[in-house]
């Protein structure tokens, strides 16, 4: 069964895209990640124009993060104040990101820019994760993650002005670092079609030293709104949100995610981390190959713009 995608302007197999949504949803449920970093490259491999893949990916992130954010909010694991500060930065970052997408598309460099960003981020993060998770796997006795919060230790973050009290996180810090983190994540959401949890969560833990309990909830809270804003701007500025494609991916995705999280409960965490890291590295390598190896077809053309 096929359906015509109104924005991608192609006929697509319903089963393929439902299946893709389900597979990515399963992995995101299994590993507890957003899945945007897998979805966007896979959509591109399947022939969806990169800009449409990124724009539609943002809609998928709204769906996949809203359920997590809702659950975390009910468990009181969201630092709303922190989330709003990050969100304000995120909106600015998204706006800038969407403008950059428009400029890059006009210049014909968007496809390469997306690949480069993916290769860089996934390559670095995947490799770091892989090294760390293999170490943990090899020495299960000492494999406990080191204590992340060193109370009494100061870093440059403490010297910044505009201090705010974040009750839920038990922090009294400047609003500037969270806003900048949010801004950066918004920028990535616009350019890469990802939620940016892979950047935000480490930054919140190591830079802001937020308690781990509220990190996931707060980042999901922020991602929902940033992704929604990205959908809005991409639709207005670039006309790259395909609602039919988004619904196919979301329907598959929300179901897949539930099965994924069920499966995740039965697997060992440290083994799963190795798998996830390997997956991230594979996606990065696959995109790197396309950038470095001489393409079979040097020419491309675009009609609009």
């Amino acid at each position: 069964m096929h359906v015509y995608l109104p924005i991608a302007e192609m006929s697509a197999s319903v089963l393929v895209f439902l299946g893709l949504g389900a597979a990515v949803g399963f992995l995101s449920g299994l590993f507890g990640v957003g899945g945007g970093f897998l979805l966007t490259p896979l959509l591109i491999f399947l022939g969806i124009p990169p800009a449409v893949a990124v724009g539609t990916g943002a809609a998928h992130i709204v769906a996949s993060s809203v359920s997590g954010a809702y659950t975390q909010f009910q468990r009181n694991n969201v630092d709303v104040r922190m989330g709003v500060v990050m969100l304000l930065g995120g909106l600015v970052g998204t706006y800038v990101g969407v403008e950059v997408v428009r400029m890059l598309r006009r210049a014909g460099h968007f496809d390469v820019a997306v690949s480069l960003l993916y290769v860089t981020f996934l390559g670095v993060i995947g490799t770091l994760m892989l090294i760390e998770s293999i170490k943990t796997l090899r020495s299960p006795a000492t494999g406990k993650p080191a204590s992340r919060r060193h109370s009494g230790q100061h870093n440059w973050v403490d010297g910044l002005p505009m201090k705010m009290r974040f009750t839920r996180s038990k922090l009294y810090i400047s609003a500037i670092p969270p806003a900048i983190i949010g801004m950066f994540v918004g920028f990535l959401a616009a350019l890469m079609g990802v939620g940016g949890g892979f950047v935000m969560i480490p930054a919140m833990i190591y830079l802001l030293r937020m308690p781990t309990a509220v990190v996931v909830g707060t980042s999901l809270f922020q991602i929902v709104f940033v992704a929604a804003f990205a959908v809005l701007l991409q639709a207005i500025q670039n006309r790259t949100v395909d609602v039919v494609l988004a619904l196919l991916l979301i329907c598959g995705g929300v179901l897949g995610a539930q099965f994924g999280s069920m499966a995740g409960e039965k697997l060992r965490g440290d083994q799963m981390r190795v798998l996830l890291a390997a997956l991230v590295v594979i996606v990065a390598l696959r995109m790197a190959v396309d950038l470095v190896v001489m393409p079979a077809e040097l020419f491309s053309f675009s009609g609009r713009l």
Partner: protein
Amino acid sequence: MRLRLAIVACLALATAPPVFAQDAARPPEAVEADVSTRSVSITSSFTGTEIIVFGTVENSRQPSAEAGTYDVVVVVEGTPLPVIVRKKARVGGLWVNAESVRFASFPSYYAIASTRPIDEFAEPEQQRKNEIGFDHIRMVPAGRTYIGPADPRETIEFREAVIRLKERDRLYVMAEHGVIFIGRSLFRATITLPPNVPVGPLTARVMLFKDGALLSSYQSKVTMEREGLERFLHDSAFDRPVLYALTTILLAALAGLAAALAFRRATAT
């Protein structure tokens, strides 16, 4: 059409030398044709379609369908659109788009069917004049916007690339024996519109050749429009992007919430 035929016939009679009077008395051949569908609708279930171009050679002197007295060329063309063609080059180890050439117009779709390979019956000059064959597709380079070293041979390379890419996407199609005579005068050709066909009006041209000369031609329009839900969604995205985006966000959020609630209920029971 009738009137023109009549005039042509009269002229032929008037100017023909008396020796050939008998031959000239036979009215000249002309082509009459039509398209099976005058409008193609792109709906949500659109997976490509076929249109049949059929016609007849009036006053055919062909003894049988297989005689090959006449050659018929059918060309179905899409709307001419501006195109930017980019060529990748290695920059710092990475393959990035470097040079680009703009064409002010390039048909979005071009299908050609003929009774036999066009080179066998039409001279290059004839092909060029009638814009038949991939080498003679009308393309207009956008003069000043050309970027890169100003070498016209380079433009040819870019032009050929568009044709190659369009052929790969089955948007430029050539069927060298695609026109079939069914009787002495009746012929037909099937033109396939792939699922990725760019939406816009099509022009169908039918040309009748004999001994390398164009005897008669016919032209018709086929409209192609989005219909139903597909049209509604596309128009919304372009005319009311804010509403379109908000609806998409709402649907996405509802789907996510519904899944979260349904799942919780499932685990609770």
